[in-house]
């Protein structure tokens, strides 16, 4: 224990973790080594199924009844945790290690007050009185910027918002002043603006408490924002590790390079936002290759890669270590996409100016039922959730409109209304000359056929009881677009266009990966040859390497079929290269709409600006303006008067009287150029003077 700087807080050596299953065992994690020092944030990054979380569970000895550490050691402050008995570990854990994980609502006990859950950390382990514990809890909550801390202690978890819940979980973790804090995707379940605030908090606390943080995430942007060092995991192994700066600047392992190419960048220009997928998929733990794990997906793989398993080795004189035979020979900058990758053609086609979809003040309200007797008898005034208010825009034929907004922005309701799953409350919506304010039961089959949808969740997009062929064939059969005898052939043609072979025809959904399910979902939507396809975040549940492939596929399909698309996304990074036009929604209202490039450069709507500033950019060198929204998104039952954004707007102080007009008057649309429109009281000329949110300094020649 000579020098704290030299002894890492956590050190894993050749860690291998196995799960016992029927008829043997599966090694979920192998050959993982890394160390985390005091005051350091160590990112563990990788796609799903790479064993990131398993490592974390091993550290806290929570592998379940069938998991165990098969080989290797876990040293915590010099003591080996492997083989320690339960009681000793429990004490160690309670006093020194804390953990924060993905879904804060799940992590908090729904039937205990927040105060009870926080206090017990102090009272059970240490002889601290209730009052003192309460005091310390309040202090800690204040430190994580929780408004109204004293009262929060008396509440139950469901009474506070998701972002606040995560603050509570973090505050609870920090109460014991842990030496090691493990964070497993702590912001994945949160909205971008909330995520940004929580990430700021994590960064700040790490500096203040000098804690070692093990930060697990799939998001390279988050790594770039909060981590000092990073370890990249693939198929249960650590394939590369080093400082964040080095890894992002000069990734050595082909997998790391692929990941970086597959992530949306939000850089300065549109070309930089093209995504390149990694072909293939992560092998299942029981089907891993004997050589390099990545060889089957690697562009550079040689026979040596396929037969010999590479070891982690340092590269040059940097701190970077990499598990690749060819690290020195690979030049990432010379990479060109292989034939097996679809690359979208960004030289845009001439767009028809003729609109195919016209919305005018479209409105969707839901009834709210109160919980009092008076409500039940219908004595109180009816209340509504104003999910979509006054949506007005045109979508030109063959173009893509990206709709961006956080949860509660009404983007999903908007497309559900257009497709007819919901009946519009008011306003007009026309597809060509057909009225689409009605719900599906009032639409003619011919109209239904022209509007189809691609769904978000790959696991629920396909009916588990039917084969791929049956599900794609059904729309053809239903609308009679293809004679019955030819359905099979048509389905196979579609499958091939989706880059799925004929042999997929008779497969059941459970035999497909997430990306393949999404491809089938797209094929099904296209089967009836619709004019308009509405996509509800079709890639948000997929791994980054697959995301890119699906997006490129959609683009190519659109080119071929001349389909008009509406594409929903929850942040601005994904839709950029994909959309012709983009609409930004907040609390049921479109705040800004225009050609896609105009959204990413000033003038912006203040909300768009905040969104852009919140998106984690996978580039540690990028300079991002720091704009954070305060408070939570208001209730759509009682939306704020005037401009709906005024309660959280960071820019209203630019207007006289601290933006009094924003509270009183609904702003009018201000048109910039090319149909770029902003719903704001601040004059568009003034908005245009803002600095761009993201600035990437020119890279010095390496």
């Amino acid at each position, binding site marked *: 224990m000579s020098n704290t700087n030299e002894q890492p807080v956590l050190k894993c050596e050749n860690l291998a973790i196995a799960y016992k299953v029927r008829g043997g065992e599966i090694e979920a994690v192998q050959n993982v080594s890394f160390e985390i020092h005091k005051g350091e944030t160590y990112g563990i990054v990788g796609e799903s199924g790479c064993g990131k979380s398993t490592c974390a569970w091993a550290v806290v000895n929570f592998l379940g009844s069938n998991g165990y550490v098969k080989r290797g050691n876990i040293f915590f402050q010099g003591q080996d945790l492997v083989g320690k008995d339960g009681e000793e570990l*429990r004490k160690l854990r309670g006093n020194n290690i804390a953990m924060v994980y993905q879904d804060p609502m799940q992590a908090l006990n*729904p039937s205990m007050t927040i105060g009870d859950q926080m206090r017990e950390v102090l009272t059970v382990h240490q002889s601290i009185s209730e009052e003192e514990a309460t005091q310390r809890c309040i202090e800690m909550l204040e430190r994580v910027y929780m408004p109204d801390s004293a009262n929060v202690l008396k509440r139950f978890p469901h009474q506070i918002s998701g972002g606040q819940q995560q603050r509570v979980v973090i505050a609870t973790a920090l109460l014991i002043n842990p030496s090691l804090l493990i964070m497993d995707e702590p912001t994945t379940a949160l909205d971008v603006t909330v995520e940004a605030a929580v990430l700021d908090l994590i960064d700040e606390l790490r500096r203040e408490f000098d804690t070692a943080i093990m930060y697990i995430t799939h998001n390279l942007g988050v790594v770039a924002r909060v981590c000092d060092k990073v370890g990249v995991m693939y198929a249960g192994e650590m394939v590369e590790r080093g400082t964040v700066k080095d890894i992002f600047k000069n990734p050595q392992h082909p997998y790391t390079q692929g990941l970086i190419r597959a992530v949306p960048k939000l850089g300065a220009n549109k070309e930089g936002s093209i995504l390149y997928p990694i072909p293939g998929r992560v092998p299942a733990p029981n089907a891993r290759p004997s050589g390099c794990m990545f060889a089957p997906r690697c562009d550079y793989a040689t026979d040596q890669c396929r037969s010999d398993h590479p070891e982690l080795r340092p590269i040059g004189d940097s701190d970077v270590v990499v598990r690749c035979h060819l690290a020195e020979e690979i030049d990432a900058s010379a990479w060109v996409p292989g034939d097996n990758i679809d690359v979208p053609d960004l030289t845009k086609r001439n767009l028809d100016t003729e609109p195919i979809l016209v919305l005018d003040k479209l409105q969707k309200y839901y009834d709210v039922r109160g919980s009092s007797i008076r409500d039940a008898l219908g004595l109180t005034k009816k209340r509504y959730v104003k999910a979509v208010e006054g949506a007005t825009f045109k979508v030109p034929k063959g173009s893509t409109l990206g709709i961006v907004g956080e949860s509660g922005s009404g983007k999903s309701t908007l497309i559900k209304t257009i497709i007819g799953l919901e009946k519009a409350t008011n306003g007009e919506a026309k597809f060509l000359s057909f009225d689409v304010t009605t719900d599906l039961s009032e639409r003619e089959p011919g109209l239904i056929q022209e509007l189809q949808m691609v769904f978000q969740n790959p696991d629920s997009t396909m009916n588990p009881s039917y084969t791929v062929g049956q599900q794609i064939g059904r729309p053809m059969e239903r609308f009679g677009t293809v004679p019955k005898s030819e359905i099979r052939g048509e389905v196979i043609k579609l499958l091939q266009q989706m880059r799925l072979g004929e042999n997929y025809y008779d497969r059941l959904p459970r035999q497909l990966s997430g990306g393949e399910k999404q491809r089938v979902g797209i094929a099904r939507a296209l089967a009836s040859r619709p004019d308009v396809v509405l996509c509800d975040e079709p890639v948000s549940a997929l791994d980054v390497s697959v995301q890119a492939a699906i997006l490129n596929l959609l683009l190519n399909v659109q080119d071929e079929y001349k389909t008009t698309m509406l594409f929903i996304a929850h942040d601005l990074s994904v839709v950029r290269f994909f959309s012709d036009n983009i609409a930004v929604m907040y609390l049921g209202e479109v705040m800004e709409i225009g050609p896609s490039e105009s959204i990413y450069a000033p003038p912006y709507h203040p909300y768009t600006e905040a969104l852009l500033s919140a998106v984690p950019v996978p580039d540690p060198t990028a300079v991002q303006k720091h704009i954070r929204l305060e408070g939570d998104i208001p209730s759509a039952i009682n939306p704020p008067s005037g401009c709906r954004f005024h309660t959280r707007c960071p820019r209203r102080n630019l207007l006289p009287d601290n933006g009094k007009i924003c509270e009183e008057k609904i702003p009018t649309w201000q048109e910039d150029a090319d149909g770029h429109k902003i719903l704001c009281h601040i004059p568009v000329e003034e908005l245009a003077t803002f600095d761009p949110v993201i600035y990437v300094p020119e890279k010095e020649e390496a």
Partner: protein
Amino acid sequence: MGRFLFRSVVSIMVTMVLVSILLFVLLDPRDGEVLVKILGIESTPEQRESLANQLALDTPIMQRYVDWVIGNDWRAERLIGKDLAIITDPRTGDQIWYVDDGDGRFLQYEVDENQMIVPLVRQEDGSYAKEEGLDLWQTDENGEKFFWGVDGKGRGALWDQSGATEFVTTQTGWQELAGAPVDYIPLRKGVLRGDAGLSWRTGRSIFNSVTERASRTFILAGLAFVVVMPLALVFGIIAGINEGRPLDRIISIVGLIGTSSPEFVSGLIMIFVFALTWKLFPTQSADLTGQGLQPKHYVLPVLTLTAVELGYVVRMTRASMVDVMKAPYIRTAIIKGMPYRRVVFRHALRNALMAPITIIMLHINYLVGGIVVVEAIFAYPGLGDYIFESAIFGDVYALAAAAMVTVIVAVLTRLFGDLAYTLLNPRIRFS
């Protein structure tokens, strides 16, 4: 909360209406089988017809349903033109209907051989004094004479001068009486007003029998509940936190065998072991000596119910506990370094009890169902026994009324279950 209560109450009322209609329609004695039951297999068609008339089974079913629910005294009062009164006979305790004369006299009537209407004036001791026959006849639009009154048995009755007869059972057999009414209204106040009429089987007020027996059954059910629930929750929780271990397996299997053994199997085995072999408890729980029921009378019925019910509730509690122990917030608590005991009692227990509580309350239904059998096995004079006897006899109104009581118990316990859930679950309480 207010809305929840309001909805529950409305839903309970609707349920009761539906149940009463269902019972009434289903049990409607349409083919006269019950008349054979009452009169005996050797009765003549005339006798059966007369009895059907006396019991008003020849009126339309809608009419009888209304009579059964809200009574028919108000209808009789309109026809008779005077108020009716119900007075307890001090000699038998039965409740008898009279016409309230308005001047302090309570009357019934009969028609004598001279076609005169004889008022029978009630005396203090419950007997009556015959008065002089009067010509109280009224005339309808066809010139026919008729008279509406209450007959000597306290039934609303219509006489005319056609000289109808009625058959009555006496202790010696059949008697045909002259001067009988041509139409009857078996007076009752209706189940809503606490009067379901008289039982065909016992001749006593159904309402009195049902309340008396229900109170005994509640004692039995209450005892069983008090024994089963704590035991079941404890075993369920023990099994739940030891999921997959031998202790869990043993509890689960014993519980399953208990639940799978019908009451009459476990009851008979208990009688065999505890009553016949070891002679610890009586074989029957009936009050044979007239000293009232002793605690020992309750032991075997309660044990039998426990054997059947325990396993089910254990199973529910176990499943809920297993679920909760896998929840992420339990993981949080363990990673926070909380002692195991605290994790179980402070973090898991309350959440684990939420689901079973509603199911347990629903299960009271099964408990009541089990009691029917247990009462039959042990001859315990409770509601279940009454239901069973009424069903065997075909005493449909008694069966319907008793079944209604079990349904009321079921819906009320369900309401309590929902309330308990609301109280335990802050997500509902504070929304």
